[in-house]
């Protein structure tokens, strides 16, 4: 029984250890790489201090415990000026070293002056999803950002409501998305892959479900993605699709656009033009597939309580709308 339990717990830990966490300690960009190296140095310095001080504490506790029957008073030492100067000076030296390394890394992760940006992106924080606009390419999308590998990407961060924070640990540290303030950051990655991001500043009820992904694509994949995103949304063919289209460009359009180039709007929901080119929806909270979408449209509030989509699609229209939406690739 016990052995079985140990195997179970051990197995769970191993399994967990093998799962890929969105951690900057597995960096996929020079920025995260600098941050991870600096972290490792600071951690090792801290570990040395930790071992020395906790070691001294344990040693003193064992050595200097009062033995039974020992009633002799210890030497009443009030202080030692030389020792106190030394243990004030050493931390000062350590923090000077830390500060120098901090300055170096702050400079190292700043965008080099000669690196002109190859791609401009605008990130807009909404409660509780991410809008990603490519102003030069005429693309508006949501919750999944695509960038080409080995490219300098300039990111402008804006919020339409409260403070959010844009964090893709493997690509870069956080930059807050502050309403009324134009923050910028830069991204670049030398590794094709899929990286998890998440809002890192508490922004209300569904802060936990304000996730996103960054896809670092090969140049060819990125070009193909751009070409597809620039296409107009799928045009309805059948009568059923016509009906769905009417609904989506009617009632749904109060909050959602299906014009792929429509950015800078006051619409509260994401652009749907190429919805099914994405892998997740509702702030990166759920895998995008027909059954999840069906549950969502039936009752968004049970899946993501508090979100702004306070409507229920009537069941007679549901099939039509879903049948149309899955064409929006």
């Amino acid at each position, binding site marked *: 029984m016990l052995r079985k339990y140990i195997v179970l717990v051990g197995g769970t830990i191993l399994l*967990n250890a093998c799962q890929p966490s969105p951690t900057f300690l597995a960096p996929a960009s020079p920025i995260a790489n600098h941050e991870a190296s600096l972290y490792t140095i600071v951690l090792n310095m801290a570990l040395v201090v930790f071992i020395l001080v906790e070691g001294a504490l344990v040693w*003193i506790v064992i050595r200097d415990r009062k033995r039974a029957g020992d009633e002799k008073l210890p030497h009443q030492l*009030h202080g030692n000026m030389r020792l106190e100067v030394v243990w004030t000076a050493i931390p000062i030296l350590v923090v000077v070293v830390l500060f120098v*390394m901090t300055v170096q890394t702050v400079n190292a992760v*700043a965008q080099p002056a000669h690196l002109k940006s190859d791609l401009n992106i605008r990130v807009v924080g909404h409660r509780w999803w991410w809008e990603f606009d490519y102003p030069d390419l005429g693309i508006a999308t949501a919750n999944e950002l695509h960038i080409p590998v080995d490219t300098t990407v300039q990111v402008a961060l804006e919020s339409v409501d409260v403070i959010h924070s844009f964090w893709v640990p493997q690509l870069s540290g956080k930059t807050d998305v502050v309403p009324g303030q134009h923050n910028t950051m830069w991204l670049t990655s030398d590794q094709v892959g899929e990286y998890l991001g998440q809002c890192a500043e508490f922004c209300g009820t569904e802060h936990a479900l304000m996730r996103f992904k960054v896809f670092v694509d090969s140049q060819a994949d990125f070009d193909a993605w751009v070409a597809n995103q620039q296409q107009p949304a799928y045009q309805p063919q059948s009568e059923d699709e016509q009906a769905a289209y009417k609904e989506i460009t009617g009632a749904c359009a109060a909050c959602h656009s299906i014009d792929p180039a429509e950015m800078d709007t006051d619409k509260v929901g994401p652009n749907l033009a190429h919805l099914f080119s994405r892998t997740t929806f509702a702030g990166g909270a759920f895998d995008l597939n027909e059954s999840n979408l069906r549950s969502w449209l039936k009752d968004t509030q049970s899946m993501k309580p508090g979100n702004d989509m306070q409507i229920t699609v009537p069941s007679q229209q549901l099939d039509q709308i879903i049948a149309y939406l899955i064409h929006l690739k």
Partner: protein
Amino acid sequence: MTTQVREIPHKVNIATSGLLSWIMTVDHKRIGILYLFSAFIFFLVGGIEALLMRIQLAQPDNKFLSPDVYNQIFTMHGTTMIFLVVMPLAAGFGNYLVPLMIGARDMAFPKLNALSYWTYLFGGVFMYSSFAFGGAPNDGWFSYAPLTEKAFSPTHGMDFWVMGILMLGLATTIGSINFIVTIIQLRAPGMTLTKLPLFVWTTFVTSFLAVFSLPSLTTAVLLLLLDRQLGSHFYNTAEGGSALLWQHLFWFFGHPEVYILILPAMGIVSMVIPVFSSKPLFGYPAVVFSTIAIGFLGFTVWAHHMFATGMPTASLLFFSADSFLIGVPTGVKIFAWLGTMWKGKLRFMTPMLFSIGFVALFLIGGLDGIHLAVVPVDWQITDSYYVVAHIHYVLFGGAIFGIFSGIYYWFPKMTGRLLGESLGKWHFWLMFIGMNMVFMPMHVLGLEGMPRRIYTYGPGRGWEIWNFIETIGAAIIAISVFIFVVNFFLTMLRAPTHHESDPWDGFTLEWTTSSPPPNYNFAEIPTVRSRRPLWDKKHPELADWKEETA
């Protein structure tokens, strides 16, 4: 020890026993006990809130709490532990002990003292009443604007929070002024500032920190109240207000606040370790100076909470450098405690265990805090579970362990009874183990990219196992607190046996009077010649005043 006779002042006592005697009291000892007792009740409430959060996070995609409830719970947990638990616990010890330690008969303003306590209690109860009036505050203990604006937080929760904070700030300001005047004016003859017990020093510095930092918080919440109730636009970015104004005002209070929370616990530890090592505090002037230095530096680092807000590089580096500097006086303290224990005769009674636990755990909190001052590293770990780990190593491993050390140490002074030692040791070891099980894995979670304040998380990110271990650790902490409560009741049921005694072989004036002390504390005001007046009395041949000529 020579003594000086002063007239015992006539105190007006409307009632001397029963409930009314507690409600009407202006006696610093009773007010101190009221503070400690009320804050402990809030500690249990805040602890239950923590347990609810740990149950919710025990597994991914858990539906135990709705997001709305979770957000109220984590907000109230932070607000409670900071404003309703640690600050008033420190105020409770300060009220009880400062007059006794400086050889005074009461605080300078006994009635203001009562006002301070009742304002605190009312503020706390008022804030909690929000649960019954449409929902508790739900924007976190630092309540960033503009999320707190009416447009985004339409319930009355934030209004309750603002009003509650105003009352608690008032209570703390009154109490702090009282401490400052008491410590300046009412010291026994001979007790110069260089002879003040360390706990009195930390209370003194803490009081200045509170008096100078609270106006910033008061301003911040008043502007928020104007925004919410009268439609002004201080933080309303849609109308040209500033989101970051709140952060500057809040953290100008908020960082000194961290030292307001930890300095009194450092004072307690600096009293306990010498007694249980049978040695004087090593490097008393350096420890006092480091306390004052922390007080000053504490006002210059607030923006290190804001490294990710898009600050210019020059500001980043300024606040980074200042934050590193605070590590120096903190290090001085840790070395001083080790130096005090060095070649002492250490007795491991429960107060000493909690003080040693404080040193061990606070060191971790300090070292992981250094990581947060390293700007590029901070960009990764700020607002992640790493920060949650850090604040709990400082405020739980630090402040709460220091306070429990104080509770075990001065319990016989307050009640004439010793808390049970073996239950005390169970309490310590379970709390120590549970604490590390909860908060050590939070470092890993932060590094693995888990943001703080999320009510749920998905599977497959490697976060499950750490969250599960943390929940078990939280249960162990709960058991340890339960053991403490049992210990308290078992002890109170026994007859007091330590009225006259000095159970720990103490050093300072509070142990020269009976336990609990009489209404007037000292029949004769003592005259003080050194930092350890009672030690001098017991060991005239080794008296401190011979050493402390400098």
